């Protein structure tokens, strides 16, 4: 129609900054569209897409829950999950089995995997989190040990690991920096190439959820995200393209 169309995206806090950046770019070429991006978490994304409070919900879950079944889901990006330790740690590689045993509490000292004699502090994400679900699905058979520390965001996982020489955790690979060290998993580097080529297994999808069919401005925007320009933006800031 005439005048301004406005779109609201809401949900996943991990994807929120990317959505903001994409919206910013999209609006410069489509001045008749206003896009607002809200956080609140994946659950809010699903809920508000259902209730209509937002036209597009953002979710970074691995499998979508019941409530989201009625929504049209599009994978717009992927995210690699890096296993990280403190830079002071000498370990550079862990096998999937070792990772599983560490997180399950079977291995409790770094010396058991070739490191120094120091207890391992396990740091994980909260139950339900997309990062955690994908981590657990890919590593398989994880029953997180009871005294594992839980943090609820990439940033706080990074701070925790950066501040504790004995800790191990996992986070979005786009947020790797010099304060923490990403481990090889089964000998595979956690790099974009390695992930895109499929060698590095810890990857999870990011969904946009829409009630009903994709049409009008909603479709245009999602198409834009999936376009080369959109996908490049995503790649530049640390996520991986959808395909």
């Amino acid at each position, binding site marked *: 129609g005439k005048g301004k169309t406005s779109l*609201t995206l*809401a949900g996943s*806090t*991990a994807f*929120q*900054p*990317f959505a*903001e*950046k994409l919206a*910013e770019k999209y609006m410069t070429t489509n001045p008749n569209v*206003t896009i*607002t*991006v*809200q*956080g*609140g978490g994946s659950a*809010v994304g699903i809920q*508000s897409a259902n*209730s209509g*409070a937002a036209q597009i919900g953002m979710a970074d879950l691995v499998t979508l829950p019941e409530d989201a079944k009625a929504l049209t889901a599009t994978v717009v990006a992927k995210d690699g999950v890096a296993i990280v330790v403190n830079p002071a740690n000498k370990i550079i590689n862990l096998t999937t089995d070792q990772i599983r045993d560490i997180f399950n509490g079977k291995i409790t000292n770094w010396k058991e995997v070739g490191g120094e004699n120091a207890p391992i502090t396990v740091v994980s994400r909260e139950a339900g989190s997309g990062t955690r679900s994908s981590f657990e699905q890919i590593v398989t058979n994880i029953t997180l040990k009871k005294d594992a520390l839980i943090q609820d*965001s*990439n*940033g*706080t996982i*990074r701070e925790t690991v950066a501040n504790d020489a004995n800790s191990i955790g996992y*986070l979005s690979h786009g*947020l790797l*920096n010099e304060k923490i060290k990403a481990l090889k998993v089964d000998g595979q580097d956690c790099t974009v190439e390695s992930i895109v080529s499929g060698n590095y297994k810890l990857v999870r999808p990011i969904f946009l959820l829409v009630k009903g069919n994709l049409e009008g401005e909603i479709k245009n925007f999602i198409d834009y995200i999936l376009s080369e320009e959109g996908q490049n933006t995503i790649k530049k*800031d640390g996520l991986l393209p959808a395909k």
Partner: protein
Amino acid sequence: MRIPPKYTQKGAIALLGGATLLTLAILIFIIVFILEKGLPVLSFNFLFKNPEDMGRAGGIFPTLIGTIILPLLAIIIATPLGIFTSVYLSEYTKETRATKIIRFGTDCLAGIPSIIFGLFGYIFFVITLEMGWSILSGGLTLAVMILPTIIRTSEEAIRAVPKSYREVSFSLGATGWQTVKKVILPNALPGIVTGIMLSIGRAIGETAAVIFTAGSSLRLPGSILDSTRTMAVHFYILAREGISAENAYGTAAALIIAVLFVNLSAYWLMHRFISKRS
């Protein structure tokens, strides 16, 4: 053995003074910690430009506006509600079981986590009343959140006004409301202001309730029905999603300086009012 008063006095000074020094040391540590990390990024551009590239570059201007407008709205709604309620409870009702229950109830509600207020606001204001993520939803939610604090602090302040002032005012033919307006509220002012300042502080520093109701959109709001992002939320997103620690602390530093300025000037105004009155 009885300790001579001289020594209990000295001991008390040492202990109380020590506690105060410790408190101040913590306070200073926190302020220095934030300023040290944040001051280097603070600049005119940082304050008055729009954020770019997810907040990694550019400034924080929209969040500055959000930080001013949202707590302001909350306080404008909650202050009269809270003060009137406490006036009603303390001056217009006898101390009964009902008032005790209400007081206890407000005390308990002061302990409800803000995320619950946020979820309430989200379901009630954002969805049911169809206000969407907006300054209005956020302001109303924050108002509800700080209401218990304002009610309780005002009530305490009102109760501390000497009974003889009330007697004098009534004996000079004042109505209940005139007494409230001319004697009770002015004399309870310091305590009421404390409650308001603490509440403003809470509203400014709040994140969860704001994200769920006022949203976290980075655009400059055009009306009260637009969504906004406060500096606290900006810090939250930048720091927790690990986007830019420097800009996060820059935001926190700007926040601290602004709040300090607001606090000091509010108190300065209040003391001027009080000393002008008598």
